[in-house]
Structures are given as C-alpha cells and as structure tokens.
C-alpha cells in the first residue's frame, strides 16, 4: 500500500522513471543556481549514486519558431539574439548566413566579412569567459567568476560601443551590419587583446591547474567520442572528447579559411579523456585561438563601406537551406524554408545545447555522485534560452 501511494505521488509530479527498491528521486531545479536557467533534472539515486537523470525542458519556451513564421526575414534577427543571450552575435551570424544561403548571396565587401569574424570571435571569448567563470562558481570557486566577469565586461563595452546594446545586439544584418565600426574601434580591440592575453595565464594558474579543481573534475562526466558524435554534440564538448572537429575548419563559412589558428582538443592529461576538465580546458585554449584570429582580423581589416551589397528587398525564391556554424556552444544550425514570400515558411533552429543536455545519461558510467551531477551539467555550458527556444 505504501509503495502504491508513493508511486501515485510520483505520477503527479510527472516522474517518468520506474523506481525499484530504495531508489530515491531528487528534483534538481527548476530553480537551481547551477542549471544556468530554468531546467528541472529528475535524478534517480541509489544512496549517493546517480542511476538515471531525466531532464525536463520547456520552462523558457517562447515559441521562437512560430514567431519566426509571422515575421519578415530581418525581423527574426532580434528573436535569434534572444535564443542564446550569451552569444547573440553568433546566433545572428548563423541566422543571416542561412538567409544568405537561401537567397544565394555570396559576394560581399571584404570589410563586412572581417567585421563579422571580429564580432563572432569577441563574442566567443565573452561566452567562454562566462562558461569558465560560472563553472568555477558551480563547484565552489568564487574568485575566477569575478575575474572572468571583469574581463567579459570589457568585451561587452566594445559591443555597446558598436551596436548600442550590451547583450542583444541586432547588429549583423542580412548582407550588412547596422552601423560601420566607429573610428578607432580596432585600436581599442587591440588594447583589449593586449590586456587580456596575460589574464588567461592568470586564470590558468588560479583555476585550470589548481589541484583541488583538477581532482574534482578530471575524472567525471566522461563522454566518449563515439557517443558525442551519435548524440550530435559539437563545439568544445565534442573536442573535449578528443575529436578534432571545428566547423570553422571543416566547412569554412564566411572567410574563416583565411586565418591561421589551431583547434585545441582534450587529451585526458590529468585524468580520463572526455572528462569535464577536458571540456573546460578546451574553452580556455580556444580563447587564445580567438585572440589569434582577432589579431589577424585587425591587421588585415580593409576599408570601404560594409553595407555596399546589402539587399534592398529580402524575398528569397522558393526553396530550402540548412546552414550550420560553430557557435561557442557547438554546432548551431538554421533550417529555413521559403515559399517565395517575405516571411519564412519554416524556421527551425538546431540548438547545440539541446543536443548536449540530451547526452547527460551517456556521461554517467555508474559512478556519478549526486554532487558530481552539478559539475557535469556545468561542464556542458548550456543556455536554457537556446534549449527551449
């Protein structure tokens, strides 16, 4: 009778896992500091061990895809910003590139292409800084959080200067940008690069090579390369598993083939390959690679008018196109279908965080502790705005 009553109570909560014996179901979230948004994890535990995790999504569902069908193509850009509000430039870039692919637009002024890469890489650093800082915070390291936010602030200032907004920019448009760079912008970018590069080393000595941190995360949340590919995971989470796969190299969009940079991968140097630490360190090293790209961009930045080839009317012919880009969180794709009108017939956003969180159980090899669940979820660097859309 008692067991039956428990089961009924579980049904009311929408618990999907069939419990056995002394299993205890823990609800982590929807309000929990380390879910980085509003996410509920239903964790079935046996003592201290996690047996199964069921994520429940949808708390931030804002019907992006339905809204997009009621908007003209340029009007969707601010909505794309709000999907992943921590890397809005990369979201805009993916969306406008998809629209351009659908319209068959290719020839753009060099200056526009360079501005796009500059914005995408600055945003990548800002996004990784937040990922690293909050990851430290999740597992109890307070200082790196403040250091990272101090540096991220400088990038947000640069964005504010160019677009007027700190987080949601509506700056990259189809075939153009909202405004050209202000005079002296690249000098300030170079000041930031010179300031920031030594800070990465500081961060490394503070957190990355910290013995307590390494012992905490270097052997948990192991994701094998095969699982990562099958689950459709991309970006730092995939590279942390040792797969050298970066869409900027594999399917260069824009002008990425002009730049010289490396693709850092996890090697399992302090524990097991594909661990939470490997995913973390890939992000740290990618910031240095982004700095490399920014230097080359500033060196080669051409003059001219970036909006020279901006289309006056955006009305793609009938057709469909899928385009994927390397966002800081992985493979971000847009699938657009046009019926020949000014509004998209279908606009599907393929979110990298959505696939990352779906692989949560593949990272549990039987030895995951309850306290580790936080460390594993944090290492995936998810943004709920993008998962729920």
């Amino acid at each position, binding site marked *: 009778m008692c067991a039956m009553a428990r089961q009924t109570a579980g049904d009311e909560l929408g618990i999907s896992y069939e419990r056995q014996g002394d299993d205890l179901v823990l609800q982590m979230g929807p309000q929990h500091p380390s879910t980085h948004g509003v996410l509920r994890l239903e964790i079935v535990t046996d003592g201290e061990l996690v047996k199964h995790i069921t994520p429940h999504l949808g708390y931030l569902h804002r019907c992006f895809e339905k809204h997009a069908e009621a908007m003209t193509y340029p009007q969707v850009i601010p909505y794309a910003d709000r999907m992943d509000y921590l890397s809005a430039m990369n979201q805009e870039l993916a969306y406008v590139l998809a629209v351009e692919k659908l319209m*068959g637009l290719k020839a753009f002024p060099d200056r526009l292409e360079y501005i796009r890469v500059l914005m995408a890489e600055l945003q990548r650093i800002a996004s990784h800084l937040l990922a690293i800082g909050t990851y430290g915070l999740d597992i109890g390291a307070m200082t790196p959080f403040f250091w990272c936010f101090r540096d991220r602030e400088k990038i947000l200032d640069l964005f504010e200067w160019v677009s007027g907004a700190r987080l949601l920019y509506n700056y990259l448009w189809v075939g153009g940008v909202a405004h050209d760079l202000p005079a002296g912008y690249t000098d300030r970018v170079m000041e930031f690069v010179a300031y920031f590069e030594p800070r990465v080393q500081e961060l490394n000595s503070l957190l990355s090579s910290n013995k307590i941190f390494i012992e905490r995360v270097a052997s948990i949340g192991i994701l094998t390369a095969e699982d990562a590919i099958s689950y*459709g995971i991309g970006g730092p989470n995939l590279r942390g598993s040792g797969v050298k796969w970066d869409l900027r190299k594999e399917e260069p969009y824009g002008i990425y083939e002009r730049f010289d940079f490396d693709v850092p991968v996890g090697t399992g140097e302090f524990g097991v390959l594909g661990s939470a630490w490997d995913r973390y360190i890939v992000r740290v090293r990618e910031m240095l690679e982004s700095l490399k790209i920014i230097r080359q961009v500033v060196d080669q930045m051409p003059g001219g008018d970036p909006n020279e080839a901006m289309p006056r009317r955006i009305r793609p012919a009938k057709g469909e196109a899928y385009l994927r880009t390397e966002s800081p969180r992985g493979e971000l794709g847009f699938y657009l279908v046009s019926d020949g009108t000014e509004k998209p017939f279908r606009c599907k956003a393929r979110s990298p965080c959505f696939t990352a969180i779906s692989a949560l159980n593949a990272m549990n090899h039987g030895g995951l502790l309850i306290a580790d669940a936080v460390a594993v979820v944090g290492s995936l660097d998810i943004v709920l705005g993008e998962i729920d859309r």
Partner: protein
Amino acid sequence: MTPEAIHGALQQRFGQAVTAFEADAIDPTVTVEASAIHDVGAFLRSEPGLLFDSLMCLSGMDYGEETSSLGVVYHLHSTSLRHTITLRVEVPRQDGVVPTVCDIWRTAEWHEREAFDLFGMRFDRHPDHRRILLPDDWEGHPLLKDYQVQEFYQGIRVPYEGDPPEIGMDVYRFQDREDPV
C-alpha cells in the same frame, strides 16, 4: 560521394521506396517513403562508402493545408567521408506515423520528441514518446499551419484579447481623475 551517387545507391538498394530526388536544390534532397526511413537510415549509417555517422538536424515540417501532408526532414553528414545529403519523408496530416531512427543516431530521440510535440506525427517504436517543450497536458501542436490555441489551460485564459478588465485599476489611475487624491 556526390548527391547523385548517393541517390543512385539508395535507388539501387530500395527501388520504389525512393520516390523523388531534387538535385538542383540548394541542399540536394532525396524523398523516401515514410515506412522505409529506418532501413534507409541504417543503410546510410553502415554502408562502406556512405558512413553517415552524424545526423545534423531533424526537423518536422507542415507543408500547408492544401498539400495535406506533414513531413520530417533529416540532414545527414559523414564526418569521415565528408559528404552531405538531405532526406525527406511525407506523412498524412492525420495519424501520420514515421519509424524512429533514434537507435541509429541517438540525437534523433529528442529531435523526434520535439517534432511530435510541435507537429503531432507519431514516431513508431520511439522509446520515450512524450512532449518535450510544451507541458504534457497542452492541447494541439502549435507549429501546424491551422493551429488554434486552446481557450483555457488549467483555468487560465490563453488567447490574448486586449487589455485586462479595468476592475480595480482606478486605484492606480488617480492622475486621470479630475480631483486627484
């Protein structure tokens, strides 16, 4: 392999089940019978020379009320051989069923749940066939072109019908009065 060669290989293996091929589309697309998609997927995944190990994207589609069909679009990529193909299946608007491919590509599990949630086609033999983004007791599938939002959800009126009633609001509108308090 070129999209033409991939289409050729599929046609040779599955014959009638491969119904159309758009070679000139931006992303070349092969249309197959819905009932055959699991076999086609398994073939593409494991056949040497094809090795599509990555399902980039799985999208539900509503092709509009006049065509009276829903669809599922699969964007496939091979990380080892670096070729790409798009598959499409079409199912009727009512009671459409597509075999799941989530045992071939694990990422399909959640993407199929999303397609079901927003479009309403069923995925046969799916291990966890539930809604994913909307609440379990939501009515209807919002991305359908003829979707009508339900009137009430758990006692709360859903459709937006202008500003809320004015009852009690005069307390806050003292500046509109002729004799402000």
